[in-house]
């Protein structure tokens, strides 16, 4: 047996990531899934843009795009062609290199997240045994790209948006991770495939509070409403991508939706039982669940007003963070009490705990309106 020190990076990838019986070996597997992931993300982005625009149209008592193709299905294609043909404008005062590099830095991590997400049993680019840790680490890299965009544009709106984004991501990372830890405790593994396999009872039932914490923090991470103040169009025009046009703008647009799909996919994997489901093929279940989660995001976006930057921070630290800690404590105790696996009765207990906790917290400990600056 080789000592750990003798392993090179290739061997490590081989040992950890590739199912031994995978046809085509390492490189075939790698090529296949790279193509699948890029194809999946780009197709899904088009799909969700269509769903968002049509869905929002329905909710806002208007039609939404319906001119291009049947039911407006080709609208995302038309949009893509439009941005491709647009002139690429770079402000004279911009930091050219940073301005140029920012969309790439933001886009790459959004794509990389999908490397560890199982589309069906074992069907993933790399079954990392630290999968969820990898997701958390990679997803925060996008922020660097966003801040580069804000700084490189030399525009005050961009800078304000980028500052807000960094502040939000740094704060919301913590409840996000703490919500994940609850899931990891129950599943007993960091590998996303193992987490899916452990969900005989979907974790949304075992971890209802964790689900809501993750959903809220996830929305804040990817600038979805009501936490969309990093690109609040009514305040700071478009936030960090105010000065972007043409394909570079399209990249940011793509990042936004790729991240939304990524968060939906992670929620699906962690809480909704991933690819598991009766009758339909697993990959279809996975896509259906992802789209459902995304639809929930569209729903919140059309319903809720936006919160303010100080309220955003207060919400992370005074509401989500303590609740996440309590949730973690309760989950740890439950895992200790039933080491062989949590029974169904825990579902009822946890739903009750969630209702009581949220009620108490919103009544006595935290209100959005508290703690605003006085004049």
């Amino acid at each position, binding site marked *: 047996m080789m000592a750990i020190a003798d392993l090179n990076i290739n061997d490590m990838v081989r040992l950890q990531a590739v199912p031994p019986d995978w046809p085509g070996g390492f490189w075939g597997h790698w090529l296949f899934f790279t193509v699948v992931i890029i194809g999946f993300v780009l197709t899904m982005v088009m799909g969700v843009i269509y769903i968002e625009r049509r869905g*929002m149209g329905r*909710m*806002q*008592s*208007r039609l939404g795009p319906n001119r291009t193709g049947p039911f407006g299905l080709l609208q995302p294609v038309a949009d893509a062609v439009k941005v491709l043909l647009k002139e690429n404008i770079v402000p004279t005062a911009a930091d050219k290199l940073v301005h140029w590099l920012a969309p790439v830095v933001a886009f790459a991590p959004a794509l990389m997240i999908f490397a560890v997400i199982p589309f069906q049993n074992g069907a993933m680019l790399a079954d990392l045994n630290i999968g969820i840790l990898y997701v958390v680490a990679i997803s925060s890299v996008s922020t660097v790209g966003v801040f580069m965009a804000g700084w490189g544009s030399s525009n*005050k*709106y961009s800078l*304000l948006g980028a500052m807000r984004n960094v502040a939000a991501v740094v704060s919301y990372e913590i409840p996000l991770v703490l919500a994940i830890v609850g899931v990891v405790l129950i599943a007993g593994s960091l590998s996303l495939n193992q987490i899916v396999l452990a969900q005989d009872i979907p974790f949304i039932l075992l971890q209802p509070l964790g689900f809501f914490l993750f959903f809220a923090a996830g929305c804040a991470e990817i600038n979805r*409403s*009501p936490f*969309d*103040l990093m690109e*609040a*169009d*009514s*305040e*700071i*025009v478009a936030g960090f991508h105010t000065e972007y046009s043409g394909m570079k703008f399209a990249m940011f647009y793509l990042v936004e939706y790729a991240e939304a799909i990524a968060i939906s996919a992670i929620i699906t994997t962690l809480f909704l039982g991933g690819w598991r489901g009766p009758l339909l093929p697993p990959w279809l279940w996975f896509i259906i669940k992802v789209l459902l989660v995304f639809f929930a995001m569209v729903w919140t*976006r*059309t*319903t*809720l*007003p*936006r*919160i*303010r*930057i*100080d*309220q955003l921070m207060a919400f992370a630290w005074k509401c989500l963070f303590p609740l996440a800690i309590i949730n973690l404590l309760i989950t740890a105790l439950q895992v200790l009490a039933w080491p062989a696996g949590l029974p169904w009765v825990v579902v009822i207990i946890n739903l009750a705990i969630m209702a009581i906790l949220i009620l108490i917290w919103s009544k006595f400990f935290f*209100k*959005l*309106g508290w703690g*605003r*600056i006085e*004049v």
Partner: protein
Amino acid sequence: MALKTEPFVLNLGPVHPSTHGVFRMRATLDGEVVVDIEPVFGYLHRGVEKLAEQRTYTGIIPLTDRLDYISAMNNNFAYCLAVEKLAGIKVPERAEYIRVIMAELQRIAAFLIAVGAFLNDCGAYFTPFLYMFREREKIVDLFEMVSGQRLTYNYMRVGGVSQDVPEEFWPALRKFVDEMPRFIDEYDRLLMQNEILLARAKGVGILTKEQAINASASGPVLRASGVKWDIRKADPYSIYDRFEFDIPTGTVGDCYDRYRVRVEEMRQSLRIIKQAMAQIPSGPVRAEVPHLIRPPVGEAYARIESPKGELGFYLVSDNSIAPYRCHIRPPSLINLTALRDMVRGWKVADLIIIFGSIDITVGEIDR
């Protein structure tokens, strides 16, 4: 330890999603906190007051449509009142009632836009805005029936209105008046107790009673600060003394109060319309007025309660066919003078919603 920060100047507008037209503010910010703002006017200046000096009295009415273009009927109304006062023209009863119905419908339409745009500024992504537009559409349809236009109606004339309303107007109006309270309740259910809206708007941008009076603010901005002042009651014009309605007022004078006052006023306007529909007599809709009006030498000031506040027209006549001087008191401009006091110390996001809660139309500010 507090970091040393340096204020910077952020130019908001004239092209900005939330400046309700082409308004511009030069805001000095310390991070996210507004230190100072300096409004810059004049991007929509068309010289309406000067243009009016070369037009006949009737020819000025289309110009007034384009002042506060989202409440054109009220502008027509105020201008016609001023000319009638100047020339001593008596308006027929039926025309008075039609005018009141139109003015109140227009008020509802303008408040729908004001509330919708305010919520849009709060970040409710276009949903309330489009819902309000759904209702405004019905009002605009009514106006199209009577005037053929959907934005600049040019409906009222000196001495009455341009023509009587068509037959199909009454059932449509009845239907609207019956349905509308249900829609207002629907918006209230959606937004009135919304935690985020409360957190954003309550206690934000407070304009005290004294400040509001000192700035000579009027309309919902003044009433939200707790002053019971409505020209329809305080100095009744036309036939407003015949109707029963309340003046909704706020208590604190924050953005939330301004939003609530507007919603309540929609209900009061519906009350007035209902009473007017019941009382309206038949008869002519226009007094015998010559095409070229030559009012006697003199001056007149007429004011009405427009959706934005006190809209006044001051006319000076030299017995020619055009006014010697036409001055307009635009409520938006006067209300806006209080903006600086309201936003100092608040955040950029608050600046936007405070600005939105004043409810301005740039066409009226720059004239």
